[in-house]
C-alpha cells in the first residue's frame, strides 16, 4: 500500500508518562514520528495529541488500534491531509540590516504572510504559519539572506467533519463526575520532587 501523510488525533487523559507510552508504540515498530503536538482540547481536562507520520493506511489503522488500547487514551482518529485543516508555525531570525538593505527580503516576507515579532538593531524575528511547503520554501529563500535561526512547530490540525469531543466524552462517562481528582502534595511542586 502507498505510504502517505497521515495525521493522528488522540484524545487522552492528561497523565504523566502519556507521551512515552504513545511514542513507544511507534518506536517499537521503527516508525518515525514526523511531528508531535500535545495541547488541551475543546473539552476541559482532556488532552489532545496531534501526530504526523508517513505510512500506509493499513499501518496507521493498526497503530490507532494499539494506541486506543492504552488505558488512558479515549479515542484515536487518523486522517489524510484532505480531511483536515492543518497548519504548522515557524519562526525565523534574520539580520535586521539585511532586511533594511535588501528589498527582496521584504517582498518575500509579505508574499508569505510573515510578520515581525521582535525587531532589534541586530536581528529581527518573523513568524509565519501555514502548510509545510510554504514554510519550507520561505526557509530556503531566507537561507540565501543569512538566516540565523529557524524553528518549525509541530503540526496542529482540525478535523473537517468532526463534531468535537463533548458528546463522545459523555458516552465514555457513565458516571459523572468520573473520578475524584487526587490532591497530591508533589503534583504542582516539582521543586520538592527534584532536589538535584
Amino acid at each position, binding site marked *: 500500500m502507498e505510504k502517505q501523510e497521515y495525521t493522528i488525533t488522540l484524545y487522552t487523559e492528561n497523565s504523566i508518562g502519556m507521551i512515552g507510552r504513545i511514542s513507544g508504540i511507534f518506536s517499537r515498530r521503527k516508525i518515525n514520528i514526523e511531528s508531535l503536538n500535545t495541547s488541551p482540547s475543546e473539552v476541559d481536562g482532556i488532552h489532545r495529541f496531534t501526530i504526523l507520520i508517513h505510512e500506509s493506511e493499513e499501518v496507521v489503522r493498526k497503530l490507532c488500534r494499539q494506541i486506543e488500547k492504552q488505558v488512558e487514551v479515549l479515542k484515536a482518529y487518523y486522517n489524510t491531509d484532505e480531511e483536515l485543516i492543518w497548519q504548522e508555525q515557524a519562526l525565523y531570525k534574520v539580520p535586521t540590516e539585511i532586511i533594511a538593505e535588501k528589498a527582496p527580503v521584504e517582498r518575500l516576507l509579505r508574499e508569505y504572510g510573515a510578520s515581525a515579532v521582535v525587531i532589534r538593531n541586530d536581528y529581527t524575528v518573523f513568524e509565519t504559519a501555514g502548510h509545510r511547503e510554504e514554510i519550507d520554501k520561505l526557509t530556503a529563500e531566507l537561507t540565501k539572506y543569512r538566516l540565523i535561526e529557524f524553528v518549525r512547530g509541530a503540526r496542529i490540525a482540525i478535523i473537517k467533519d468532526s463534531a468535537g469531543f463533548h458528546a463522545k466524552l459523555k458516552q465514555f462517562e457513565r*458516571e459523572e463526575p468520573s473520578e475524584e481528582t487526587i490532591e497530591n502534595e508533589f503534583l504542582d511542586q516539582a521543586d520538592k520532587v*527534584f532536589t538535584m
Partner: protein
Amino acid sequence: MSTLEKTETKPKQKTSTASQLTGSQAVLEALIHEGVDTVFGYPGGAIMPIYDALYDYNDRLRHILVRHEQGGIHAAQGYARTSGRVGVAFATSGPGATNLVTGLADAMIDSNPIVCVTGQVFASLLGTDAFQEVDVINITTPVTKWNYQVTDASEIPSVLAKAFHIASTGRPGPVLIDITKNAQLQLFDYPGYATCDHIRSYRPKPIVRKEYIEQAAELINAAKKPFVLFGQGIIIGKAEEEFKNFIEKGGFPAAATVMGLSALETAHPQHVGMLGMHGNYAPNVMTNECDVLIAIGMRFDDRVTGRLDKYAKQAKVIHLDIDPAEIDKNVKTTVPVWGDCKETLPQLTDLIQTNDHREWLNQFRELEAEEIKEVIHPELNPTSEVLTMGEVVRLLNEHTNGDAVIVTDVGQHQMVACRYAKFNKSKSSVTSGGLGTMGFGLPAAIGAWYGAPERDVIAIIGDGGIQMTIQELGTIMQFGAKVKILILNNEFLGMVRQWQQLFHDKRYSFVNITSPDFVAVAKGYYIEGNKVSEREQLKEALKTMLDHDGAYLLEVMVGKENNVFPMVAQGTSVSEIRLK
C-alpha cells in the same frame, strides 16, 4: 478497620469518621478487599514500610518469600493461571523492580492478570540517582497494561482499585504500581476502599455488534469445511461451556493453540489437536483446506500461522476477540466478532444450524492416523534403548488420567508436553507461550500450586530451564508447595540444538550444557528426589513422585539428540509441515 459502603457515595464527600492509615496499610487493605490471599514477594529498602505493615496482616495475607523477584512474578502468573484470579507480586525499587521485567513481558504477551507493587525511593529523591533508584515506570511501560507511580498515600486506595480493575478485565494484563517510600510511610485519612468498575478512558469490552454475529452465522451455515481454532480467550473468558456448546452444535473440528490447551478436554471427539510449529499434522494442514476458519480468543501468533502469505488464503475468516487491536492484525478477517466470547458464543450458537460435518472430521482423523504412525507412536512407544520425552509424558498421563496441572518451561520438553499431555479440565496447562521464557516453569509451578492447592501440580522442565531459576527450590523448601518437578534431561539446550542440526549444518554452538547432580541439589534443599535413565524404572519412579506427600524432584535422562516433530519450519507454510 471500618467497613465501607459500596461506591455509590459521592467521592467528594470525605467522612469525618475516617480512620487514619499509613500508605502501607492502605496497600494491604486494598489487597484484602480485592480478595487476594497470597502475595509473592521479596523485601528491600524501598518497600520496607509495606513489609513492616505486612507483619500485622500475616493472619489475613499469606506472603511467600521467593528467592528472586523474577521467581515472584512467575509464581504470581502461575497462581493467576490456575486460580483465574489476579496474581500479586511485591518487589523493592531498583534491582528488585528490574528483576520483574521478564515476568511482566511474559504476563503481557500471555494476558495474565497481575498486579505488581514496587517500592520506590522517597519522592524527594526521584531523579537524583539515589540508592536503588531506577525509572521503573519508563522501564516497564511497554510491558504493562498500565502502570502508575504513587507519591502520596491518599492516592493508594483508588489507584490500587484501578490496578485490579485494569489487570483483570477485558484482555487481562500486568499492572505495576510504584509507590515512593514517603507515600508508604505517610499517615492519611483513610476514606475506605471502593472497588473500581469504571474508568472513562478504558473500555475493556467492545460492544457486541449483532450484525457481525448474523454475518458470521451465515458464513458458518454455508460452510462445507468449517474449522475452529481456539486460544486462551476461552479460559480467560470462562467460556468453556459456551465454547463446547458451540462446537458440538455445529459439529466443527476444533484445534487449540498452545495457550488454549485444556479449554476443551483433550479427549473430546471434536478436539483435533494443537496448532502451530510443533502442533499436530492435521490441524496445520487443514488450515489451508478449510473454507471457513473460526478463530476464537487467539491472536494468530507467527508460531501458529507460519508463513502468513500462504496461510488460510482460501478461507473466509471469522475472528472472535475481545481486543479490537487483534482483528486484522496478522490475518485479514472476513467477519470480526468483537466482544467477550462468553457473550458472543451463545449468540452465535443460537444462530447456527445443527450439523455434524462427519466427512470433514474424518479427513482430520485420516491425517492424524498418518501422524500417529510416523511420529506419535514411535515417540510414545520407542524401541530405541534411550528414553524419549514422549514416553515419559505418556506414562505420566497414565498416572494422572489428565487431572493434573501441567506446568512447563520452554523448549523441546514444552512442545512434547503440550503435544502429549492429557487435560480433562480447564486451567490445567500453564506455560510461557508468547514470550518463551526459559526459567518460567519452576516458579510458575509454585504459584500454580498456591492457586490450586487441591490439585496435583507437575512442572515439566528441561535441564537448561531449571538452571535459570533453580533457586526457587528454596521457596519450596521454606513454604512447602507440593510441586512435582520432572526434569527431562537430554544434556543439551535441545530446541536450539534441533535448529542447529536442521538449519545450521549441525554446527552445535554452545548448546551442550552440563548439569549439577539435580537430586543432590534438591537434597540440599531438603526436597526428596530420584534420577532414572532406564525404561524399567520409569513407571515406578513416576508413581513414587506422584504419591509422595510433598515436593519431589525426578530427573529422567532422555535421548540426547531426539527432535520434536512434526515441524513447520520458519518461513514455510502450515501445509508444508514436516513429519520428519
